């Protein structure tokens, strides 16, 4: 079997390397990043506070464009989360060994991204304090139930299920690592915390056997979730009657875009963390190369979808449909559309070259471009379809206010605050899984840790 980590570190070395940041005090780089993330988070909290206490009118939305930055950011963050589950679940089902070094941080990214995403449906409500009305619970209003025909309600279920399953999967994956850390910690608070978190893990054959079964079952459950959650998000648009939204291609196209943008984000994060946390041995060029290939695949699917949409608009003979796509390419938001095409459809094509895939700086720039492009994709889909639709008398422009921009910055602040805490407090590489790819092959001499 092809080895995915560099060198041939003894098993104890792997534990040492991964556990090092958990025992050392944070460096200057981490502190600076954390301060920046907290500042961004504070900006976001301030903006959301102002918006909720003053009213949704502080955003740049108007009567024609009712969804702008809010839902753009929502779909963007949900999309980011999907790569995490793809890496941890789908690649597990496909028995891909290269996922072992990156799955933990990818799952963490999923959870934090879904948290950021979950914020937007709440705060974009006019009356967020009545948000609990979306839950179907017996009440003194008749009972008054929710309407199960709205994709916005499916979003509630999709997102909550997704967050729950992701959290469980993430936690279950960490149990053996918590046990390792528990056994390495000297008696004290740290040992107690790891002891409770590891739930009495003893690493017996029976435990491992059941553990593997559970992991596969959870992966099997999470895989249809990845597909369905973002499909449901896409149905917020696809089930509408708006030209530019009412399209049957949206569910798979959104999922491909989600994996594409998610891998972009994983790439950004891993390139940074492998350098900052000195984990180059575990997150190697080959991992980045494999991720780049997935990005190339999904980026090409996204590009194909753009082409399909344009072709179908032409083929449909529907003047409204054609007008929307003509408007995207030539209208007031044309710069968004062309940047999106450049970032999403054209830029990943350079990944055909092995030289680009092995160039970390190029991959880093590309991964940023992917996320800019995918953010713009959601913006273009939402805003250009809304601002010019059936009635020309309702044509308007949408200009986001500083409050919306501040909320977007705040969501990045929340994401990076969580992620930076994660890399200091939890094992960011699955120690036990990496060891399965190291020297633990049955036909080799097993080194004892």
């Amino acid at each position, binding site marked *: 079997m092809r080895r995915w980590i560099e060198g041939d570190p003894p098993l104890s070395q792997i534990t040492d390397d991964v556990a090092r940041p958990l025992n050392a005090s944070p460096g200057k780089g981490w502190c600076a990043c954390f301060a920046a993330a907290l500042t961004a988070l504070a900006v976001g909290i301030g903006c959301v506070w102002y918006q909720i206490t003053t009213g949704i009118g502080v955003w740049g939305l108007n009567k024609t464009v009712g969804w702008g930055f809010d839902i753009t950011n929502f779909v963007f963050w949900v999309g980011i989360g999907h790569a995490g589950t793809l890496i941890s679940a789908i690649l597990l089902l496909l028995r891909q060994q290269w996922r072992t070094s990156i799955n933990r941080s990818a799952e963490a990214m999923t959870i934090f991204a879904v948290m950021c995403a979950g914020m937007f449906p709440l705060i974009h409500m006019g009356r967020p304090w009545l948000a609990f009305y979306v839950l179907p*619970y*017996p*009440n*003194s*209003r*008749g*009972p*008054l139930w929710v309407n199960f025909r709205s994709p916005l309600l499916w979003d509630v279920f999709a997102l909550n299920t997704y967050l729950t399953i992701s959290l469980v999967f993430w936690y279950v994956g960490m149990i053996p690592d918590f046990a390792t850390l*528990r*056994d390495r910690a000297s008696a004290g608070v740290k040992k107690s915390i790891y*002891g409770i978190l*590891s739930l*009495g*893990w*003893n690493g017996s054959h029976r435990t491992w056997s059941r553990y593997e079964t559970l992991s596969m079952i959870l992966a099997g459950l999470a895989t249809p979730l990845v597909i369905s959650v973002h499909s449901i998000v896409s149905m917020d648009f696809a089930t509408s009657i708006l030209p530019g939204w009412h399209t049957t291609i949206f569910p798979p196209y959104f999922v491909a875009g989600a994996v594409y943008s998610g891998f972009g984000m994983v790439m950004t994060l891993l390139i940074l963390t492998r350098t900052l946390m000195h984990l180059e041995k575990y997150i190697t060029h080959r991992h980045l190369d494999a991720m780049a290939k997935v990005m190339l695949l999904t980026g090409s699917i996204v590009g194909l979808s753009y082409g399909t949409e344009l072709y179908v608009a032409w083929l449909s003979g529907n003047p409204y449909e054609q007008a929307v796509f003509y408007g995207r390419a030539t209208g007031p938001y044309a710069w968004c559309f062309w940047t999106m095409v450049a970032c999403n459809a054209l830029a990943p094509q350079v990944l055909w070259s092995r030289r680009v895939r092995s160039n970390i700086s190029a991959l880093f720039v590309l991964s940023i471009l992917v996320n800019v492009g995918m953010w713009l994709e959601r913006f273009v889909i939402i805003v250009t379809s809304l601002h010019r639709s059936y009635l020309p008398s309702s044509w308007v422009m949408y200009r986001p206010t500083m409050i919306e921009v501040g909320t977007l910055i705040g969501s990045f602040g929340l994401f990076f605050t969580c992620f930076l805490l994660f890399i200091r407090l939890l094992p960011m590489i699955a120690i036990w899984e990496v060891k399965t790819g190291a020297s633990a092959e049955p036909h080799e001499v097993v080194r004892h840790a």
Partner: protein
Amino acid sequence: MSQIFHRSANTIARVSIFGAVFFIAGLLLVFGEVSRSPWMTEAHVAREQPIQFSHERHVAGNGIDCRYCHTSVEESSFAGIPPTKTCMNCHSQIFANSPYLEPVRDSFRTGRSIQWTRVHDLPDFVYFNHSIHVHKGIGCTTCHGQVDRMPLMWQESSLQMEWCIDCHRNPERYVRPRDAVFRVDYVPPANQLEIGTQLVADYQIQKLTSCSTCHR
């Protein structure tokens, strides 16, 4: 290696799993009860008024018909609170010097309205029409309780939407003949469902439960 968890952890694990189930179930139950309790709805709480007006005295004691004071109940959406003039019809002669009734006489002299405290106060996003209910055979006591036995007025029902909806879904359980609407001593007969079903048909009662019926 020593045992990771003490034996007592087994008990903690079991209790926490079962406990969590019961705790959550109990919490839901408590929320349900609290949201329907008089603490939330103020049902059955007698309200202080500027004048301690007794429905018991006027209805049960004197046998005055509901419509003598609440004149608009058959024609208007609003049943109305009687003006001072209605009080003075009798009280210019009866208990004419009682200090108890000084606020009424004062209101009559100065023309300033008596500031009654409203007991049945629906939110303004609910459109309620008294006349249609009276016209379709819903008696006063069905909603307002035995007003003839209330020394001080209180709200008999929760006025929550589920209370409204229950009757709108099953009017046959509550409807009575039109000529008995204002009878405070009316008791639903044993065959209420039979009679009710007939009355629903006779009065052409629609089971209106769409939003626009009330939330206009």
